[in-house]
């Protein structure tokens, strides 16, 4: 018996070693990993008594995780998750409404309309097409200008796109096509696009990174990642489709039932502060406080005009249905495409 209690004792000792001195906020996020450290440092510099512990994953995964933990939430704050996901959480009663300082500066599109708002927007991330110029030349591909162009058979097997089930970028693509082309036209468009897709990826960044290293010629991704990849040396050109591009905003909210309400509110105040906006602006050109926005290197200039009039509530409430339908149509393809 003595030997058998060893593992149990060791496990309990392990579990007990979780004590902490200063306040640690568990923050769930879908911010791009390359930005996390910067955001954390910026916040902790002005709030030295609070430490941020990130849990980062793709939008779909973090959303799934938050919903799976509905009855026993682990997160204190959600900072940097798609507004459509936060709308979903809000309807499940998982968010604590709070009006952060400086709320009045926000573009009205970038906040929950309730008062106080359940969530606030931070910046917009917008769909973009990443084209590898080296590969396009090698395969003799013309530069696409619109979503419609991508269905041209010349691009067969040259296009990668994120799976909307896991990727927030994939979902905003699909929901924007359904909003722009109508329910029927949208599915018809995706049927035709599907013929040219080489593979669907898990994350929204991957199509652009894969295009960057020539694994595919064209990646349907988002402008931030495209601009960042170009800066890293990828031979890419960014295209904003002429029909208009889907977008979603990165948003922040307090998770209901947190033990650290006061600290969570301070993080929310920071999340829409001028300082935070400048941090977002390093990668994102469109901000919740429009007058602070500065142009971003390699970022498409006409981003604001290209953004469609997105109906987030529609997207959130129909999310489940759109995803099932998408999965039924495209995800269960039996044969690989060659």
């Amino acid at each position, binding site marked *: 018996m003595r030997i058998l209690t060893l593992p149990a004792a060791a496990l309990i000792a392990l*579990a007990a070693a979780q004590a902490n001195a200063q306040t640690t906020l568990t923050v769930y996020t879908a911010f791009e990993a390359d930005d996390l450290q910067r955001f954390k440092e910026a916040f902790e510099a002005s709030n030295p008594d609070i430490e941020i512990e990130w849990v980062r994953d793709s939008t779909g995964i973090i959303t799934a995780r938050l919903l799976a933990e509905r009855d026993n939430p682990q997160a204190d704050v959600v900072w940097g998750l798609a507004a459509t996901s936060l709308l979903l959480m809000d309807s499940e009663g998982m968010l604590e409404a709070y009006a952060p300082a400086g709320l009045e500066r926000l573009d009205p599109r970038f906040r929950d309309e309730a008062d106080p708002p359940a969530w606030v927007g931070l910046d917009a991330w917008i769909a973009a097409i990443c084209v590898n110029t080296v590969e396009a030349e090698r395969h003799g591909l013309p530069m696409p200008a619109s979503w419609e162009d991508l269905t041209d058979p010349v691009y067969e097997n040259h296009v990668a796109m994120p799976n909307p089930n896991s990727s927030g970028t994939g979902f905003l693509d699909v929901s924007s096509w359904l909003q722009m082309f109508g329910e029927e036209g949208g599915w018809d468009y995706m049927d035709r696009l599907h013929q040219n897709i080489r593979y669907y990826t898990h994350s929204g960044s991957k199509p652009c990174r894969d295009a960057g290293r020539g694994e595919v010629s064209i990646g349907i991704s988002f402008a931030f990642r495209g601009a960042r990849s170009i800066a890293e040396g990828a031979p890419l050109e960014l295209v904003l489709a002429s029909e208009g591009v889907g977008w979603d905003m990165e948003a922040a909210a307090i998770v209901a039932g947190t033990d650290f309400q006061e600290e969570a509110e301070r993080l929310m105040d920071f999340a829409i502060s001028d300082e935070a906006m400048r941090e977002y602006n390093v990668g994102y050109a469109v901000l919740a406080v429009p007058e602070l926005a500065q142009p971003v290197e390699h970022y498409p200039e006409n981003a604001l005009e290209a953004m469609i009039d997105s109906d987030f509530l529609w997207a959130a409430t129909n999310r489940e249905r759109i995803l099932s339908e998408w999965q039924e149509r495209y995800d269960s393809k039996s044969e690989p495409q060659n």
Partner: protein
Amino acid sequence: MATVEAAYGAGATAPAKPIKSKLSRDDYSMRGLIVVIIVYLAFALILPLALVLTKSVQTYHFTLDQVEVEFFRDGAWVERATLADWVERSDYEVNHGLRASERTREQPAQIIPRGARQDIEQFRLRDLSPEKGLILHAGDLSDSDAWIEVDRREFARVQIRPARSYGLGNFDHYFATPALRVSIVNSLTIALITTGIVIPLAFAYAYGLTRTLMPLRPVFKTIAMVPILVPSLLPAIGLVYLFGNQGILTPLLMGESIYGPIGIVMASAFFAFPHAVLILLVALSVTDARLYEAATALRASPLRTFLTVTLPGARYGLISAFFVVFTLVITDFGVPKVVGGQYNVLALDIYRQVIGQQNFQMGAVVSMILLVPAIVAFTVDRMVTRRQVALLSARAVPYQPKPHRQRDLTFLGICSVVGLFILGILLMCQLAAVFQFWPYDLSLSLRNFAFNQMDGGGWASYGNSIRMALYTAFIGTFLIFFGAYLVEKGNGFTKGRSIFQLFAMMPMAVPGMVLGLAYIFFFNDPANPFNFLYGTMAILVICTITHLYTVSHLTAATALKQMDPEFEAVAASLKQPFWRTFSRVSMPVCLPAMSEIWIYLFVNAMTTVSAVVFLYSPSTTLASVAVLNMDDAGDIAPAAAMGMMIFYTNAGVRILHHIFANRVLGRTQAWRMR
């Protein structure tokens, strides 16, 4: 009793029949300990899995006839009707005709056409269902049949949840949907082809290592273990670099794509190979030389000797290896995740259903289907075990191969080809990790090792992985070996031992993804007294030990089976308690097997992805999960770099282990040599 009966049946020397009354105290403590380990496995495996089973039979459908709506018009509530009536009146298609899942919601504002409620400013709804909870308004569920009043604006936000019931509807749907069903065929195809390739190769390889005097045997043994040192994602990443769109060997595929069955089979064969070799090495390394002396004396041809002595001797190992490889491949999701393309397999379906669709019920259905191979494996294993003969009887003479130039060269050739394939994939990953920007900028750089700038938790996850692997290896080895000893060498108590065997076999076929999710359901429930484990390192260790239980158990059991039960009988006749036999005879004799289990647990804890991908917390991110997350984000070169870090760590530990094996085992196993 199985082993004893087998020894009798095969005509081996009959052991002294145990005298029950003298042994009873020993028997009781062994039974007690068996029960303790069974309880551990019940909490770490069976109960969480039972929750998955429950989920698989949960079905959801909208019971709109249970929700009543009224309009406030001219100072009175009028037009009472259920939503089902409205559906009929407005010809509305509920949920666009799709099956409802737990997360599906309907909206009264969609069901009741705008035209019918143009002038209405106040609405009220009520929930008539006996279970309640159908109406979701402002984050609150309806908990009685009281009216809920809302204004026009709020009405648009009211949602209706589907009602839950239990039945086989999910399974019906699964088998009625060809797009889902096809994964079964795909998975079986991949697993069978891979097993068909791996088993003969692994057997030849293990034979070369144990039964020939080919040169460089220690080197080849090390090379064979290399794939075990890396996460299954890494060979897949290597294949993308070798055979992808920009790959250097892509022309070899003759136009076929690496994304699909070809890639899955190649990468699966790579990661499953050492598991087969490990089992076959144990099976082939213990044999009775007297059988070969007899064969030579009877002038049997080498082929005949092989067919009548070698193969039957390794039969148990072969069958174990077959099921281990088959189930490893069919339950792996790392490989199809990276190179699967649009070729769907069961393990990845679980991932997609659960993670993507958040459809836990359908994920549970696929998991249940994946459990079928485990039941088959268990049944066959039991049948074979009954016929197993103890090879290392008290009088056995260890086998020592004699020089044979042609044979040795043949096996050197086979092993070299396999070895080159293994090292080639690894080399490619190493190159990809140190190039600045493959394939456009081939200058050397350490950029890809700046993990703190990327997904997956950075360098901290690397440290966590090492801690987790050490805990898993030390706690796991002892627990698993001791358990195997109790179940193999105990007397009677067939019921308890059968349950134990069943429990010990199950983890192999339980996809890590399912185990991880089962753990969330089980441990994240605030009502569970073990809730405090959630989000800790401990849960990762428990999950990993449980996930890796089967192969370790089989390795221990195979080694123990080859020990004559006479050892126990003699000890019993000398009135020695079982723990003395265990610590003085079984453990020392099986020290090679135990040290193999330790290293197996360590390296697999370093490389496991699926089991822990849902369980890590911010303070316990892991290196292997970081590989997955970085690949997911398209940071494939840093993913390769982190994979190589895992490799170097595991290789370092493996070398230390090798030194340990040479020193300590050399001393304790000297009796095997003549």
